[in-house]
């Protein structure tokens, strides 16, 4: 029994492979159609990494500053920093103490060569900057919470929190990035559905061409499984070739495009991102291609078996 099942399986695999080789034209059309789908999904995967990097960079630039009264020691500010870390945990992406001297140095660096600011500083005569905490958070609603927490618990040494001045800007940045993310997800889903449907239709057309063959197989007494399995194997072989084709395009293309992408989005290394996620990408490509080949041929053949 096991031997006959194995023989049957071996024959199905052999028929599938032979059919793939013999129906050269339609096989390669199927390979190309599946390859387009897989290429698109892979490109969306890489674009997701790119857009995430851009969004992170934009969000990282959004921060609030808590200014402390003149004369507040850095050690006191460090206590508040640790308190915030304890209270908000991982939600704080970055927090750093900026001493009055560092603030002055940043100011001088930024307006070097601008006599107006230089003169204004000279007139003040002393360092006008206050020590501060620069805080970057992952979620937009946390900025208000942190600002409230600081004013409620550390009002004694706090001078001001500049969140309320930046509230609109922060919300706009976060809303825009979250809208971009949603748009990306919806566009990717729609595009994927569209190309999957195109792939389904073109595979259905190639199976339609084999309908008289399916009819003959039925008439000589072949079981449904014995008829559809070689077509499904043929579809999966097409999927495997499609995945291979896309991998052969994506890998060298990513390698050569990395410098150009990095110049457009500083800090995003495409090749590094690809290397870090290669297992996922290969899994998506190979499993996706096999599944697409499997399900589309199965559904197409099933249609003619029912008749």
């Amino acid at each position, binding site marked *: 029994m096991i031997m006959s099942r194995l023989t049957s399986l071996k024959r199905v695999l052999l028929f599938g492979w*032979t059919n793939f080789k013999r129906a050269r034209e339609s096989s390669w059309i199927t390979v190309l159609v599946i390859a387009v789908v897989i290429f698109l999904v892979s490109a969306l995967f890489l674009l997701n990494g790119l857009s995430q990097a851009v969004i992170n960079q934009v969000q990282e630039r959004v921060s609030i500053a808590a200014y402390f009264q003149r004369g507040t020691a850095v050690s006191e500010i460090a206590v508040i920093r640790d308190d915030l870390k304890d209270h908000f945990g991982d939600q704080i992406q970055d927090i750093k103490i900026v001493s009055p001297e560092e603030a002055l140095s940043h100011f001088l660096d930024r307006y070097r060569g601008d006599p107006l600011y230089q003169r204004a500083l000279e007139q003040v005569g002393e360092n006008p900057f206050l020590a501060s905490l620069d805080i970057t958070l992952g979620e937009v609603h946390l900025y208000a919470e942190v600002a409230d927490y600081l004013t409620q618990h550390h009002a004694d040494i706090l001078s001001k929190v500049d969140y309320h001045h930046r509230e609109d800007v922060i919300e706009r940045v976060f809303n825009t990035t979250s809208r971009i993310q949603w748009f990306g997800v919806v566009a990717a889903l729609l595009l994927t559905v569209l190309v999957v449907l195109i792939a389904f239709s073109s595979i259905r057309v190639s199976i339609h061409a084999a309908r008289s063959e399916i009819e003959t197989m039925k008439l000589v*007494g072949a079981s449904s499984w014995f008829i559809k399995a070689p077509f499904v194997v043929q579809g999966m072989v097409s999927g495997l070739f499609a995945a291979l084709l896309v991998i052969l395009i994506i890998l060298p293309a990513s390698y050569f495009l990395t410098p150009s992408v990095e110049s457009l989005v500083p800090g995003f290394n495409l090749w590094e991102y690809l290397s870090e996620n290669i297992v996922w990408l290969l899994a998506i490509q190979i499993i996706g291609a096999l599944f697409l080949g499997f399900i589309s041929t199965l559904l197409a053949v099933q249609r003619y078996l029912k008749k």
Partner: protein
Amino acid sequence: MIKFDQVSKLYSNSCLALDNINLEIKQGEFVTIVGKSGAGKTTLIKLLIREELPTEGQVYFDGQSVLEMNRRQICQLRQRIGVVYQDYKLLPQQTVYGNVAYVLSVIGASDSEIERDVPRVLEIVGLADKTDDFPHQLSGGEKQRLAIARALIHQPEVIMADEPSGNLDPYNTWDIIEVLNKIHQMGTTVVVATHDKDVIAQTEGRVIALNQGRIIRDDYQTRNFVF
């Protein structure tokens, strides 16, 4: 072995292909069904292998109603009947060898049985030197012989040939009928549907004449059969 009990077949275009057919074919018989085009010969074959369903009546194979068979039983029925189709119905992606071997694969024959039997049958039908050719590379006569090889490779209990001389020259027709006669002599039930008088003249046994879906004559072979 085969029984048509009050069978009628009305196609959707209101064409009455068979009209109240009562027919019994015994095991080991050589039956020639004759009639003009459209007399209902092909429909009779289609009903037996359940390619079509009758509008009325019952069709039996080996005592079992063909209409009441499930999918698995239909596959088994088709494996027990070898059919030579008028339009050959060959598998275009398979070679001559592959077309014949496919039927053996369907019934679960072992690799060694396939390697042993296929060349033998191709030798019998005279296609031993065409094993690697594809159907589109064969002539009409070769396709017909390949269809016969495929129908008899698994030694079915019944062989049905629908217009086996269609598109063949007299020499090839004689060849094909000789092969069918040999199969019959080995004990297989053979049913030939034809409108070709030369074929009728070359066959021995029972002749059933159909006209407009009705049996008008059921007799044993006479050389000058008129229908």
